[in-house]
């Protein structure tokens, strides 16, 4: 096992285990403070789309759970946007009462298998864990994933959530969009006895969880398991339904729906308006990831959707979307993959764990670099990217130091594929086809932070459509708050 080739790691700190996944598993030497999760070997995983993090064994989970000191003040709960009962679920896990651990977790978080995998824990629950002040915080996300995966495998052991049927209220709610915001709102509302229909524009439900986040980070079977959970609760799912194109929100309200929740996300890609941006081989991250994940271009030609990709790929941006694009490019066979980011490593908004994974896999990071244009090969394809070096100046509105171009530092790098991962804004379709919604200059829909209520009668909104591109857990939290307020409204009318 060529441990020396694992970039960014002190090879002394690696021990090698042979995993039951069939390949070799590398795992950092047992940290006295935190049980590491086994992962696929970086070299092997750079060639497949299987999940990178392999999950805790029962022993590992027990050992990690043992470390929790059960703080009476529960600071970790404050750090979680949906206030998961963290000490309680860890306690149940520790005591070997898995069904209770599941119930504790699911009473606050209906998608734990997803959050355990993709939440930016380091800036949420784990950041404020008491142990973080001294050593490493409890690996809350990993324990959460362990409990959720246990539930998937032992479904019958946990009492079915549908066992006590709610009293039907006779009220109808339309949920637009089946991302984490929509799914959460739908689940909560059916549980309260309302009749719920989810309208989804694409041919599969799940939103970014299906088309954006790749299989190796979030297996699609897990997402579909959660979607199925919501439909078995009784929510109706209508696919291929672009609201605004078929019925509009106003038509839904006029034709029998008592309330509407907008959870349509922020799906519109931003480009930089640089010269040469429309050359072949230049993709928005949305297109690159949609072809790869949703349409399964990584299984081409078994699946019909192709992805034209060359050997030298540059991904522009420093968030989760950029990391995912770069790591997909690697897995699709690129020889060299660059992340081009205009600030420095510390300002990168991506989850820390994924940045480390990307570095380990051999993605080349070019910090303090900004593209200024694209050059073609004379036949319409991109062949090189012009860049300029940046330096950090005074902090800007976001509190991060503003990058400014260094005069005379221009250079050209040869690339044949470029992925632009600079963020997204809400699709204007809903706002432009709905009377009386208020939007901001970024195209987000204005809604009350606590209730999700928009200025329009009987319409609520939550998730990325309100906040702009954010996180899975914040979208879920917004879906939950809106569901509670919709329920209150429906019961008082």
């Amino acid at each position: 096992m060529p441990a020396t080739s694992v970039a960014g790691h002190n090879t002394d700190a690696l021990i090698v285990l042979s995993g039951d996944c069939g390949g070799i598993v590398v795992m950092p030497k047992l940290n006295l403070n935190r049980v590491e999760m086994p992962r696929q070997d970086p070299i092997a995983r750079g060639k497949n789309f299987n999940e990178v993090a392999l999950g805790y064994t029962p022993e590992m989970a027990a050992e990690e759970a043992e470390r929790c000191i059960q703080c009476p003040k529960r600071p970790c709960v404050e750090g979680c946007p949906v206030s998961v009962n963290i000490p309680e679920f860890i306690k149940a896990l520790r005591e070997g009462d898995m069904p209770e651990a599941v119930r504790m977790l699911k009473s606050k978080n209906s998608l734990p298998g997803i959050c355990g995998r993709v939440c930016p824990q380091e800036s949420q629950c784990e950041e404020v864990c008491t142990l973080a002040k001294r050593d490493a915080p409890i690996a809350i996300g990993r324990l959460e994933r362990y409990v959720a995966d246990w539930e998937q495998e032992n479904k019958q052991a946990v009492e079915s959530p549908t066992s006590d049927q709610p009293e039907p209220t006779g009220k109808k709610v339309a949920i637009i969009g089946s991302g984490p915001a929509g799914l959460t709102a739908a689940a909560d509302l059916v549980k309260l006895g309302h009749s719920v229909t989810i309208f989804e524009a694409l041919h599969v439900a799940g939103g970014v969880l299906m088309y954006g986040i790749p299989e190796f980070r979030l297996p699609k079977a897990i997402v579909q398991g959660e979607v199925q959970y919501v439909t078995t609760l009784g929510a109706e799912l209508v696919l291929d339904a672009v609201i605004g194109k078929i019925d509009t929100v106003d038509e839904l309200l006029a034709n029998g729906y008592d309330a509407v929740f907008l959870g349509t996300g922020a799906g519109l890609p931003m480009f930089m308006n640089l010269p040469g941006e429309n050359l072949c081989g230049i993709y928005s991250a949305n297109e690159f990831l949609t072809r790869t994940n949703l349409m399964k271009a990584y299984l081409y030609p078994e699946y019909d959707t192709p992805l034209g990709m060359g050997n030298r790929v540059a991904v522009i941006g420093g968030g989760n979307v950029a990391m995912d694009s770069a790591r997909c490019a690697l897995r699709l066979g690129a020889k060299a993959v660059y992340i081009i980011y205009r600030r420095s490593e510390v300002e990168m908004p991506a989850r820390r764990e994924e940045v480390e994974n990307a570095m380990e896999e051999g993605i080349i990071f070019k910090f303090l670099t900004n593209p200024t244009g694209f050059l073609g090969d004379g036949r319409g394809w991109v062949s090189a990217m012009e860049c300029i070096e940046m330096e950090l100046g005074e902090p800007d509105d976001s509190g991060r130091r503003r990058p400014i171009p260094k005069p005379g530092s221009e250079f050209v790098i040869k690339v044949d594929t470029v992925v632009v991962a600079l963020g997204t804004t809400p699709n204007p379709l809903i706002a432009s086809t709905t009377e009386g919604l208020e939007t901001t200059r970024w195209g987000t829909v204005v809604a009350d932070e606590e209730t999700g209520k928009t200025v329009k009668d009987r319409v609520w909104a939550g998730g990325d459509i309100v906040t702009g591109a954010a996180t899975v857990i914040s979208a879920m939290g917004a879906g939950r708050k809106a569901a509670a307020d919709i329920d209150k409204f429906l019961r008082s009318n």
Partner: protein
Amino acid sequence: MYKILSREDLAPNIHQFEIEAPSIARKAQPGQFIIIMVDEKGERIPLTIADWNRENGSIFLVFNVVGQTTNKLAAVQVGESIMSLSGPMGLPAEIDKFGTVVTVTSGYSVVTIVPVVQALKEMGNRVISIMRAPTMDSVFGQEHLGAMSDELIVTIGDNSCNGEPNFVTEPLEKLLKAEQIDRVITVGPVCVMKLVASVTRPHEVKTIASLNPIMVDGTGMCGCCRVSVGGKTMFACVDGPEFDAHEVDWPSLMARRCTYASNERGWSQYRCLDCAQW
């Protein structure tokens, strides 16, 4: 699932399907399209809504078999279903009282232009339609288009788009010289639309082309369909598909349409690459 209610083979490799899709039929407007996916492993491709029947809750599609997806689609029989159909996508065609309008179509668009012609007629326009088919036996759609139009000109030419005699540009040029034409609308292969634009430009006649870049979602989410129009980047699926033909960056559209030309599994009929125009 969306059931095929009837099918008709219009010409070799050109098929017309009637498909059950009530929510789309209810809203369809001339010039709009749908995104279709035949099965779970399929690709999402755009096809124009050639006609619709709001009472029956059905839409009509006419497609040319050119590659993997259209081959798969052609194999679906009446009574069978396809997996996914979404729309109506895109902005409806711009319909107004323009005066005399000339439409120029080739291939599937000879049929898909009909709702546009009908709407133009209802607004009181005089409509002259020019259509093209590569050979005598591949002529189809002429009766319907002819019945809708004030005048129909059929041109027959081989597959080369180099402006041969009898190519659509000949009669178009004649019309432009002979009388006042207020607007030209063209739909078809990129090379045809590009030539039409070059013929009308010196006459300063407003010319609309319905662009056909590669698409994925059709809702503005991926940016795959972006086209450069008047120096600005537009998404054809939401800002179009109709654009001012004199402002379109044709070489860029041609190149982008061929992004997967070398990937695809054989079958190529009208691929812009074949005309080697760029």
